[in-house]
């Protein structure tokens, strides 16, 4: 059902929109961010400087932006989504040409007043454009090969650009986030089965051919994959971080070592303790109870987002909400798997908790779209 078809009279206008905001989602996000403030205060050795205060300011700004986006009617965003996508793509190409390098990867565009990470924008733009695409596409054509190739290209082009930076974490998020929208749109499941089998076959082929005269990759490439998959094979190099993170987590026990008592993080044994590895601080200081609580809050966000999507009769809105929710899910699932030693180390922050402007802004903007869809849903 397209937007034009619903009864516009029932969509709230003006200040009445405030009453229709999905408040549980907002509160959950504030709760999660508060965990972040607490942890940033702790890792700074009991100080709001340098991280907690800056993070709070950004969160307040981001929250404002979220409400602003939320109050703008969703159809406007839908109509703009192709433009968003094109702009993001252009910025990604620009990063490739003139981007700034940081931590071994070319990711940032310096806009003078801020440093922009176009790959973060692309996470939202991709979900939006795919949702708009399937909102536009009629049911008969959606499982036809040609009409499946178009969204695949929409995903693959930016993914390729991001992979070149190189940023494996974001590439993963883009591809799975995009694929989830195609999946939710109802494209025939055989496509997914095919892609997944092909992927498994490739991985199996790569590994099974190892050591035979027909091996796919060079020996040194295999060795790099080895350390990537199992950092503990290199305990002083790549493995050091993950080993220390596991020690921090484990030493938390049931209730943790107490606020600001985490030795692993406070004494710098854990790297990136305020950004990608902030979960270790939480788990060390508040233990299993604290870590599980954060997990529950994240689950709450997903439940309310999916519930909102299921209830929304607008196809664009529901696809977009679910796509953004999946992106949010991927953020913390990948981050937590990484710090708990379940997945290789890829640079993905813990959403709303890790210190950092870009990621936090992207999450809040994306939930701005979720709120917009929620407020302006057809009734």
């Amino acid at each position, binding site marked *: 059902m397209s937007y034009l078809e619903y009864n516009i009279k029932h969509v709230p206008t003006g200040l009445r929109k405030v009453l229709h905001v999905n408040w549980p989602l907002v509160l959950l996000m504030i709760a999660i961010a508060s965990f972040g403030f607490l942890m940033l205060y702790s890792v700074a050795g009991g100080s709001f400087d340098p991280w907690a205060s800056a993070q709070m300011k950004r969160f307040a700004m981001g929250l404002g932006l979220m409400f602003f986006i939320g109050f703008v009617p969703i159809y406007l965003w839908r109509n703009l989504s192709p433009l968003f996508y094109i702009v993001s793509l252009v910025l990604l190409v620009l990063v490739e040409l003139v981007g700034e390098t940081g931590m071994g990867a070319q990711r940032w565009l310096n806009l003078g007043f801020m440093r922009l990470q176009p790959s973060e924008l692309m996470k939202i733009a991709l979900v939006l454009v795919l949702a708009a695409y399937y909102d536009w596409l009629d049911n008969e054509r959606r499982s036809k090969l040609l009409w499946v190739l178009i969204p695949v290209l929409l995903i693959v082009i930016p993914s390729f650009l991001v992979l070149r930076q190189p940023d494996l974490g974001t590439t993963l998020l883009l591809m799975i986030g995009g694929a989830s929208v195609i999946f939710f*749109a109802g494209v025939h499941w055989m496509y997914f089965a095919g892609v997944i089998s092909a992927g498994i076959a490739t991985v199996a082929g790569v590994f099974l051919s190892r050591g035979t005269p027909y091996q796919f990759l060079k020996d040194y490439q295999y060795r790099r994959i080895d350390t990537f998959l199992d950092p503990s094979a290199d305990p002083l190099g790549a493995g050091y971080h993950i080993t220390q993170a596991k020690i921090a*987590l484990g*030493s938390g*026990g049931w209730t943790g070592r107490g606020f600001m008592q985490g030795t*692993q993080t*406070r004494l*710098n044994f854990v790297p990136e303790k305020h950004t990608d590895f902030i979960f270790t601080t939480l788990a060390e200081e508040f233990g299993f109870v604290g870590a599980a609580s954060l997990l529950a809050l994240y689950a709450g966000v997903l439940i309310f987002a999916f519930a909102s999507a299921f209830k929304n009769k607008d196809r664009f809105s529901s696809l977009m909400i679910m796509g953004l929710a999946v992106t949010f899910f991927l953020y913390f699932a990948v981050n*937590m798997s990484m710090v*708990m030693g*379940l997945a290789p180390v890829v640079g993905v922050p813990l959403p709303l908790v890790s210190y950092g402007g870009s990621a936090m802004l992207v999450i809040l903007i994306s939930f701005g779209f979720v709120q917009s869809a929620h407020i302006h849903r057809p009734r």
Partner: protein
Amino acid sequence: MRRTPKDVEQNARTVSRRGIIFGGLQLLMFGTLGWRMRQLQLRDSEQFRLLADENRINIRLLPPARGLIFDRNGKALAINEQNYRVVIVREDAGDVEKVLSQLQMLINLSDEDVAAALKTVKQRSPFVPITVADHLTWDDVAKIAVNAPALPGITPEVGFSRVYPRGKDFAHVIGYVGPVSDYDLAKIDDQDPLLQIPKFQIGKTGVENKKERDLRGKAGTKSIEVNAVGRVMRELERQEGQSGDDLQLTIDASLQNYAEARLAGQSASCVVMDVKSGDLIAIGSAPSFDPNKFVRGISVPDYQGLLDDEFRPLASKSVQGTYPPGSTVKMVTALAALEGDFADAADTVRCNGYTEVADRNFHCWKRGGHGKVDLVSSLVESCDVYYYEMAQKVGIENISAMAKRLGLGSKFSLPLSAVASGLAPTKEWKRKRYGKDWVIGDSLNAAIGQGFVKSSPLQLAVMTARIASGTDITPRLVKTINGRETLAPKPESLGIATSSLKAVRDGMFGVSNLTRGTGFRSRIIAKGMRMAGKTGTSQVRNISAAERASGVIRNEDLPWKRRDHALFVGYAPADDPKYAISVVVEHGGGGSTAAAPIARDIMLQALYGELPPLDAYPTNQRSTIRRQQREINILASTRKAGAKDST
């Protein structure tokens, strides 16, 4: 685009269905994450807690204060003095080079020191304090403190370092400490973790080395929390160590000082021993060196100088050096003859200046011979022929057995470096050592302390003390450890007949008090303090028949290395022996001229406890002695002052 309501309905169902499928996948992920948390935080928590503590807690050792060493009267011989040093911390200093050059303008700091400090500073973490200069004076510290604002990152620190306030006097007895080396670690079987501290000071020689375990003490520990790069965050726990035991030696510092001063200028040594208790009152060895230089790290030229010195200042000659004892061993031969009933004290031997044994002429030191000699006069005049006769009667086995009883050829357990065991040769020893049979000539040589016989000044002093006391007294160097008296074995009688001892003692008394005595010139005339002794002159070269025919070359005409060793052993007072003494002057010429006067002077100093009055000396020597006393007084006091300077 427009859709039919049916389509819309179906689309909504698809979205919901697929959303639920995906939700299921997400649930699976939540399950995995939760399971992993449980695994890490609940199941393996204790193990990880342990690892976390291992990460952050560092156990540091607190070096204990080393035990002090005192002399028998409580005078300090080895102490721990506050040592000022200056350290630099890179992260506080900023421009390290600039700060160091500013420091160089204030205190005496060589360019090499600065370069070395710069190198270390760059290698270590920025927060690690690096020692720039050590052993600073209080003035330097004050200058640094005043100029602190211009010297960021520079702080004076106080540590302890070993100081020997008596400098050279005790270098050979106490030895010195130095930083533990890989060589030390390989050599000693010691699990003490203190030894793992870089530059930890351990005893290298002498008492410092042999009494290391008493002096060292026990390490304390402190647990500190460090961060990932090793910076110390805070102290968690501290357990103080136990400082080392203080030692009190039997040495009398003032006598030691006098002895060293009296020996100075020659390559000589002396041992003074208490006849009744076995206490070693002085162990002199000249020349000596300043142990404080070794503690601070001696310079290569200084060290090379010590090594190249012909007089071997590094050797402790009194216990390490072994010499042919010469005539000082004649008491042994005499006692062996008397105790074995091979001769009677009154038996006489005719001395013509030589005796012919096995187609060889064995000469007496006196060309014309002594005529008829009995045991006492053989000692008094040191007749060699008498002992050639005795040697043939008694045999080497009996002589060596008596030597052993009197302490020659036996190693005393003293806390000193490389205590020599000397040699009292036997037939079996020669067969083993040289694969040759013992010949009668060997016995003749041994009887007058030449040939294979070797003994150290310490052994000669013990021998004299045993003859004087008639007991098997053993030497003792450590009086108390941590205030507790060390137990010396109670001396037992040697089992030598009183009459034999009396004959030998009479002979020794005659040496120093009869006009014919070889030590007569160096007699003591003070009442109740008379000395009994024996001179000895031992050859370090063979005198050929041709030389003997043309007249033996006088010592003064020989190069130093080929001159005879001069020896003297004695005890006093003769009628109630208190101290035994031995003096060896390497290549000093004759025992009566070179060694006996030194022995008398040191003995008098020991008996009086201060510089003796001139009337203890024979009348005609007093003016010379007065002059000599004055010189030694100056020398002794400058040695003391020098020692203070070097602290």
